């Protein structure tokens, strides 16, 4: 086994264990959330609040993934190196998976909190737009056969699509919204007991993202090798 493969296997095992520990901390160890004035939220919402430990890190990872897509797209346009395109594509795919996790888990949380599964709140609307923009990124890639042209167009699109991400992040600060603002310049909306679990989950999801990215990039590199092999053999 090559050294890089050993490292990836080790990282994968660590990330898997870290996620299990995160689930235990979030579901068992973290104290129950209370309302703004310290009141009890009721059984359904108190339990549903624990979604935050995986929901917010999923949102963080999806935004991080799209940021990496943007940076890698710039890298590709500057250098023309195929590895940048592979990184952009791989990261966008992970971003999509975590965006689905965010929208789904948020919708489930909204039912006990807002008494509805979905509302066209600025945060939910802008996140849906982010999701559709990155689905379109894959549709754009799928519509082109020439690899160089595909990579170039996707890179330009990947840079412009990222504009939607900071808009989504700031939407709950810029516009009237019912979505909670977890932190702003003055406050952090979690109790001191919740913070360590929350930050542990953030770190775990970041590690999980890195592991997913490395696996996804390796897959794409193998695919490119297969394509090259086919060309060499004339298939």
């Amino acid at each position, binding site marked *: 086994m090559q050294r890089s493969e050993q490292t990836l296997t080790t990282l994968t095992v660590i990330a898997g264990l870290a996620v299990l520990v995160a689930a235990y901390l979030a*579901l068992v160890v973290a104290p129950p959330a209370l309302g703004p004035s310290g009141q009890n939220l009721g059984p359904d919402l108190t339990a549903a609040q624990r979604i935050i430990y*995986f929901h917010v890190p999923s949102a963080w990872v999806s935004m991080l993934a799209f940021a990496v897509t943007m940076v890698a797209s710039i890298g590709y346009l500057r250098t023309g190196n195929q590895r940048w395109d592979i990184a952009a594509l791989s990261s966008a795919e992970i971003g999509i998976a975590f965006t*689905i996790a965010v929208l*789904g888990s948020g919708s489930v949380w909204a039912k006990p909190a807002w008494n509805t599964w979905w509302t066209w709140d600025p945060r939910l609307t802008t996140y849906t737009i982010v999701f559709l923009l990155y689905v379109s990124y894959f549709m754009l890639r799928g519509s082109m056969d020439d690899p160089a042209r595909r990579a170039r167009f996707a890179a330009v699109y990947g840079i412009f699509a990222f504009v939607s991400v900071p808009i989504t992040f700031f939407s709950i600060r810029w516009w009237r919204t019912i979505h909670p603002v977890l932190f702003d310049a003055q406050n952090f909306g979690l109790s001191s007991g919740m913070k360590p679990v929350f930050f542990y989950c953030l770190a775990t999801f970041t590690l999980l993202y890195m592991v*997913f990215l490395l696996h996804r990039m390796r897959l794409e590199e193998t*695919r490119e090798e297969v394509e090259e092999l*086919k060309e060499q053999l004339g298939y």
Partner: protein
Amino acid sequence: MIYMVAGYLIIWLASFAFIISLVQRQRQLRREIEALREMAGEDKVTAARETPEYKPSPTLR
């Protein structure tokens, strides 16, 4: 409680769906590589047989 379980289930499902799709694509690529290797091996044999000085090798069948 049901909402919490459903919320976590969605996140786990999204993650596992991604992992399963990675594994499946990796398997598909391995199968393709195997097939290409076999085809390349057959091509080598055919090309070798077509050359006038062809002599069967004990390892190349």
